[in-house]
């Protein structure tokens, strides 16, 4: 009995059996949605599979894309109070042509929320990358600034809506050169501050996690509700 594995994989939207080296931690958002759906299926409660209540958007496929970018260690950081610079890159190729993007949320996890080390206030800048950066070439000047935001302290998760950017990248994959994330420390630089700055930056570099939560709607698997009524 040869189980038609490839047929089932194709149905799942995969071209071959994934062979992950390690299991990624499942983000609480996906875990909660999954558990709510399991509970609803068990109780026979009917619900629209193509509407994600927790995120208040339509969609039936949620992907958490991991950042594949690298940290930049440039000797001359662009500004004296620069704390870290990092390329952010998300591979959108898993999204099939038929799928419609309904959400692309960048999650920047600056590290666990603690109360004993609130740390300095930060400025966070996200800019487009205009030209590909290879190896040890000098860092290309960042392109248009996408986000400039102050962050009270270097802790917790910050969300950014990148739906329009992701749609553009999905329609023109060549444009997807990623983003440049720069974190600057606000405030004066006395000696004590200097020490704290290095400590904060080292901790941030260690704990920073970037991911892109992408939600898509597969029209063949999500009949519009009007069609059901028909």
């Amino acid at each position, binding site marked *: 009995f040869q189980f038609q594995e490839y047929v089932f994989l194709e149905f*799942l939207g995969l071209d071959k059996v994934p062979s*992950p080296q390690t299991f*990624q931690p499942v983000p609480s958002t996906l875990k909660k949605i999954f558990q709510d759906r399991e509970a609803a299926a068990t109780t026979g409660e009917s619900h629209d599979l193509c509407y994600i209540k927790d995120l208040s958007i339509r969609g039936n496929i*949620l992907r958490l*894309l991991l950042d594949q970018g690298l940290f930049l260690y440039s000797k001359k950081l662009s500004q004296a109070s620069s704390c870290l610079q990092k390329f952010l890159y998300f591979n959108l190729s898993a999204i099939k042509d038929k799928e419609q993007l309904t959400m692309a949320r960048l999650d920047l996890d600056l590290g666990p929320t603690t109360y004993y080390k609130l740390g300095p206030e930060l400025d966070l800048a996200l800019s487009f990358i205009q030209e590909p950066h290879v190896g040890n070439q000098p860092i290309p000047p960042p392109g248009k600034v996408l986000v400039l935001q102050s962050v009270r302290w270097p802790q917790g998760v910050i969300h950014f809506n990148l739906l329009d950017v992701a749609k553009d990248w999905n329609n023109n994959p060549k444009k997807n050169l990623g983003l440049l994330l720069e974190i600057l420390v606000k405030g004066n630089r006395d000696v004590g501050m200097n020490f704290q700055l290095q400590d904060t930056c080292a901790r941030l570099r260690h704990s920073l996690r970037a991911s892109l939560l992408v939600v898509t709607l597969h029209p063949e698997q999500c009949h519009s509700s009007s069609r059901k009524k028909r």
Partner: protein
Amino acid sequence: EAIPAPKAFCKNLCHRHQLFINFRDLGWHKWIIAPKGFMANYCHGECPFSLTTSLNSSNYAFLQALMHAVDPEVPQAVCIPTKLSPISMLYQDNDDNVILRHYEDMVVDECGCG
């Protein structure tokens, strides 16, 4: 593994046959985070005319069974799913992305003659 049908039921009549596919048996537990397996239930069994009024059947099935009784050339009514439920799958792809995907009408909950 096939889960035995309740004894009282005539086994050859249309009913739901439960079949659980354990992803570990396929070696898929290495990339499917949840659930542990998949209820691949199926419908199978006869739809005789005498029972179409009680076998959770459609009116169409009753008429088709009546016609089959008159003219055996007309095929019998068939045993089909009458209630389906969705499943959600949480898995990891080759880029270590975590994916949660919902699929409608994947699990057969009830069968009947249609």
